[in-house]
């Protein structure tokens, strides 16, 4: 229970961080540091159990039971080592941040850092590979935002980092799926213990390579190393935490985790040792070239990660112990160095060692702490870095394979270590050595230095008392190799090969340092023809060009060309079916009634008319006719709800279409004969295929099993007798919810389209001028009849719509139909209004849509109370005088439907019905007639003539018109 508790608290801290920041400002960092330490203390209580009794803390809760994915958490020694990094270094960095940043708001920073800590914690305690993957990606996302928040110049590095690490995440996903499919469980500890890793080399190698790709991208190994220096665009605390101590160690964690399964795999050994040492040496050389201290440290991190990767590849118990110790040592000295570089940057205003000089005289404490950490990095006794480097050396000599491999690997490692020594001294000498020029600088406040001092001095203390780490490292070896390590850490191990290696390293390193000017000249050139960033940018640009080229094949401005394709395919299917011949069963009963033919004739007539007419208005009228006939068809097919819906939709469609048509030319575009005949040909073929297909493939069986079930069970299950409505709001409410969302989006999209483009001018035809001074030219007089009827009819429609809503469960009605009746009421109010100002319904229609979808979703969530999303809850409410009313939350769901449909309808009416507003017109500003056509007829007394006054500004009206 303690694991999900800590994780949950970390998430909670992340959410609360912006609030803390608001109240205490940057000092929120101290609070977060204290919380991190407290959480660490909670875990420390359990730690002895893990370390000395070889137990694990485990927790399991269901997450996706259908595919057996669980919230499985497990904390063992390896996990504990990384938890120490996450919470320990995390606390130091948080405390450091409280002084590093200037006063002001940093809520987003603390939020992301705490969220990252939560993700990293989750990653190292996850015992389910799916969970592991989720946390892995979450760290990537946090890193992206933390780099990107620095400013404009950080955008490109942030995107490059994201794309690369996400690509690595995909490799991990591949590995996760391969393991789940092959081994049959997603539980990490079970997967790692499976014999398949030894018995099936193909599986082991494939998965191993995928894991390696994931780890290499995260831990910046060649050829992915370049992202880490690139990511230095982030602020220094972020670099110290994510890109030195914690996130880049996620790759190391992953490799250590999979070590028990893959340490005997030759591909694993070769890749890790080869690439690891290559990266270690290459990045160390790069570090010697750099002048920016932060960039130098970034390459140094890449190099150190290379040492770690290589030693994990060796795979012996001693090697894994070395990996554990060095991970800890590296986190300590590298976090310190980053923090101190940040201090120098803040105090001096530069990180360039060509400009920094002699700071030891003015900032002695900073200099001392930096020197201590740099010595640890260089592997000089008596620091922890010396002990871990000796362990590394000893392990490299145990490299698997022929006898010659060990010494070769060891020699390469010594070369890397010599370079490390050289750049460690370069850092210290570059910043603190030489003559002091800036004598007016001061040591920063001790509070600012405190976090760096803690980690720096910890490296010294642990050097003397390295034995304290023995049990933990022993446990790490047990986790990763299955055997106890028998590890004894200490400064003196007698005269052993690694001692000679250390002596050589330090001796040659000192020579390199003394000849530093020569080395600088030697390395002052490009070592490779291209940089990683250039390669990445070239690949990135090529991918985008390729995508544009593929998409270009189908790019055309004519919708007809896109739309023709499916119909031609439909016709081709029909032709194919006719050629091969299809056997179909006979109809169980006759399916045609005499009445059908009448409706068929009406539809055919209407369709011929709408195809032939050139007049838009006639087309709309014919569309309405066809719609009404279809509604009749639904009625005689035994679908009263559908028929009602169709009828109402048809009415509203015509109303909306009229609002649009009045702005368009009177007739349709003319088209050439060729186009007409091609369209007609495609249309006839598609129509023929559709008719034949419908005849051959539908209605040739008894009622479906599902339909029979609904008819039989609807009343029992839901209490409703209108089976169609029960399907909509009970049985298949999720479909309806999805539909509502589509509907709501359509409403929002209508708003968006009109906000971007505005609405075109109305069709101010010259004929209108003829009616000036007559009742037809006066909107107020013109509408008397409709207004009078509407005044009486509107309340009736509202009541009717509410009645239809409530009764929908038993009789024809329900949310859709009720809302459409209500919408028809609004349409009436709209059309009968005398002026544009009187017309609009001043309702927050976006709010209506949102509340509709929201209510429906909330009801769905209530359903969890009875076992599942959208499951309706029932209650019988007793009525006065006996009897009861059967209440179901399905009704509330239907109210959601009602609200959303009303919202979309009102949106369309209001936005399309709005009068023309010229660009830049302020709300309510009276303006003159734009075209001088329809003269403003003075309204009736008491009714201001506001025909041309905008009722509300078109948001896009100032833009493109």
């Amino acid at each position, binding site marked *: 229970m303690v694991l999900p508790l800590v994780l949950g608290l970390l998430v909670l801290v992340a959410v609360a961080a912006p609030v803390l920041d608001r109240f205490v400002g940057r000092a929120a960092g101290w609070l977060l540091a204290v919380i991190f330490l407290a959480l660490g203390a909670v875990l420390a209580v359990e730690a002895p159990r893990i370390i000395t009794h070889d137990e694990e803390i485990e927790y399991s809760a269901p997450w996706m039971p259908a595919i057996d994915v669980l919230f499985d958490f497990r904390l063992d020694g390896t996990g504990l080592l990384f938890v120490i990094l996450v919470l320990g270094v995390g606390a130091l960095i948080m405390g450091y941040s409280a002084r590093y940043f200037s006063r002001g708001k940093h809520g987003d920073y603390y939020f992301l850092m705490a969220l990252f800590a939560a993700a990293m914690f989750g990653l190292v305690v996850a015992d389910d590979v799916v969970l592991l993957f989720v946390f892995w990606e979450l760290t990537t996302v946090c890193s992206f935002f933390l780099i990107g928040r620095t400013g404009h110049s950080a955008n490109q590095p942030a995107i490059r980092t994201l794309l690369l690490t996400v690509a690595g995440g995909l490799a991990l996903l591949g590995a996760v799926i391969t393991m789940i499919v092959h081994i049959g469980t997603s539980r990490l500890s079970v997967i790692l213990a499976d014999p398949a890793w030894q018995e099936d080399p193909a599986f082991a190698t494939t998965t191993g390579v995928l894991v390696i790709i994931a780890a290499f991208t995260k831990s910046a190994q060649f050829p992915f190393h370049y992202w880490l220096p690139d990511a230095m665009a982030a602020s220094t605390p972020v670099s110290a935490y994510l890109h030195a101590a914690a996130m880049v160690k996620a790759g190391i964690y992953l490799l250590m985790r999979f070590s028990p399964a893959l340490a005997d795999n030759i591909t694993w050994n070769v890749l890790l040792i080869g690439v690891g040492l290559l990266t270690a040496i290459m990045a160390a050389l790069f570090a010697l070239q750099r002048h920016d201290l932060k960039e130098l440290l970034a390459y140094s991190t890449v190099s150190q990660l290379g040492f770690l990767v290589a030693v994990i590849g060796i795979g012996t118990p001693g090697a894994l112990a070395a990996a554990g110790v060095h991970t800890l040592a590296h986190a300590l000295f590298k976090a310190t160095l980053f923090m101190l570089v940040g201090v120098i940057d803040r105090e001096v205003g530069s990180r360039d060692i060509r400009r920094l000089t002699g700071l030891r005289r003015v900032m002695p404490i900073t200099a001392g702490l930096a020197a201590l950490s740099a010595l640890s990095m260089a592997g000089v006794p008596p620091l922890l870095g010396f002990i871990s480097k000796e362990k590394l050396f000893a392990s490299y000599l145990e490299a698997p394979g022929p006898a010659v491999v060990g010494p070769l690997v060891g020699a390469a490692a010594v070369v890397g270590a010599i370079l490390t020594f050289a750049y460690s001294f370069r850092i210290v000498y570059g910043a603190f050595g030489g003559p002091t020029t800036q004598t007016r600088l001061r040591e920063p406040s001790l509070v600012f230095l405190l976090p760096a001092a803690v980690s720096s001095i910890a490296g010294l203390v642990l050097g003397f008392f390295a034995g304290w780490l023995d049990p933990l490292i022993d446990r790490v070896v047990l986790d990763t190799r299955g055997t106890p390590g028998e590890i004894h850490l200490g400064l003196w191990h007698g005269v052993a090969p690694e001692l000679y290696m250390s002596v050589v390293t330090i001796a040659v390193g000192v020579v390199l340092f003394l000849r530093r000017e020569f080395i600088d000249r030697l390395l002052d050139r490009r070592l490779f023809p291209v940089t990683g960033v250039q390669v990445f940018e070239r690949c990135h640009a090529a991918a985008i060009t390729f995508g544009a080229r593929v998409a270009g094949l189908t790019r055309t401005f004519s*919708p*007809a060309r896109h739309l*023709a394709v499916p*119909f031609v395919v439909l016709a081709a299917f029909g032709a194919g079916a006719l050629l091969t011949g299809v056997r179909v069963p006979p109809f*169980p*009963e006759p399916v*045609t*009634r005499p009445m059908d033919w009448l409706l068929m004739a009406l*539809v*055919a007539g209407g*369709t011929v008319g*709408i*195809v032939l007419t050139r007049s838009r208005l006639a*087309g709309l009228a014919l569309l309405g006719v*066809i719609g009404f006939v279809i509604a009749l068809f*639904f009625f005689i*097919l*035994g*679908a009263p*709800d*559908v028929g009602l*819906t169709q009828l109402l*939709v048809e009415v509203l469609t015509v109303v*909306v*279409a009229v*609002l*649009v048509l009045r*702005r*368009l030319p009177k007739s349709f*575009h003319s088209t050439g004969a060729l186009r007409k005949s*091609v*369209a007609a040909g*495609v*249309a006839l073929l*598609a*129509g023929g295929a*559709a*008719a*034949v297909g*419908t005849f051959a493939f*539908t*209605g040739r069986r008894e009622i*479906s099993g599902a339909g029979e079930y*609904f008819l039989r069970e609807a009343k029992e299950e839901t209490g409703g*007798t209108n*089976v*169609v409505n029960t399907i*909509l709001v009970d049985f298949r409410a999720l*479909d*309806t919810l999805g*539909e509502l969302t589509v*509907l709501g989006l359509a409403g929002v*999209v209508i708003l968006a*389209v*009109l906000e971007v483009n505005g609405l*075109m001018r109305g069709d101010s035809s010259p004929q209108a001028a003829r009616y000036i001074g007559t009742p037809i030219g006066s909107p107020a007089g013109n509408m008397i009849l409709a207004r009078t009827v509407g005044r009486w009819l509107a309340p009736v429609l509202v009541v009717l719509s509410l009645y239809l809503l409530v009764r929908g469960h*038993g*009789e024809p009605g329900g949310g*859709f139909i009720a809302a459409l009746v209500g919408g028809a009421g609004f349409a009436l109010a709209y059309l009968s209004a005398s002026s544009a100002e009187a017309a609009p319904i001043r309702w927050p229609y976006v709010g209506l849509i949102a509340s509709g979808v929201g209510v429906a979703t909330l009801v769905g969530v209530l359903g969890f109370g009875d076992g599942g999303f959208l499951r309706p809850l029932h209650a019988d409410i007793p009525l006065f005088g006996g009897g009861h009313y059967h209440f179901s939350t399905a009704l509330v769901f239907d109210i959601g439907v009602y609200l959303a449909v009303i919202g979309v309808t009102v949106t*369309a009416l209001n936005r399309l019905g709005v009068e023309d507003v010229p660009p830049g017109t302020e709300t309510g500003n009276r303006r003159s007639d734009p075209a001088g056509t329809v003269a403003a007829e003075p309204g009736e007394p008491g009714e201001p003539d506001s025909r041309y006054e905008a009722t509300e500004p078109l948001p896009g009206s100032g833009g493109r018109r």
Partner: protein
Amino acid sequence: MSLALVVGVLVAGGTFLVLQRGMVRIAFGFVLLGHAANLVLLSAGGAARRGEPLLSIADLATAADPLPQAFVLTAIVIAFAITIYMLTLAGAGEGDDDTEDRR
């Protein structure tokens, strides 16, 4: 047979209209195609059984299949949303609803 012919007529008319230039005609074409699709769905439920699926009055032996009806009801409302969206596009042009005008 009758339903199949209606579907054929509607698909032919709808196809012709969506292959035209003006956005309004394309929208009208989509409306006709929507009618056709809805009739296909109902036809799939079986046009032989035409009783209303209202349990208060229904004879279960002849009641129509309610599932396709629920589909169609949903489909009509979505088609309505799409139609008014397309009409909005038609109305939001620069004085015309021509889709192939490359000024």
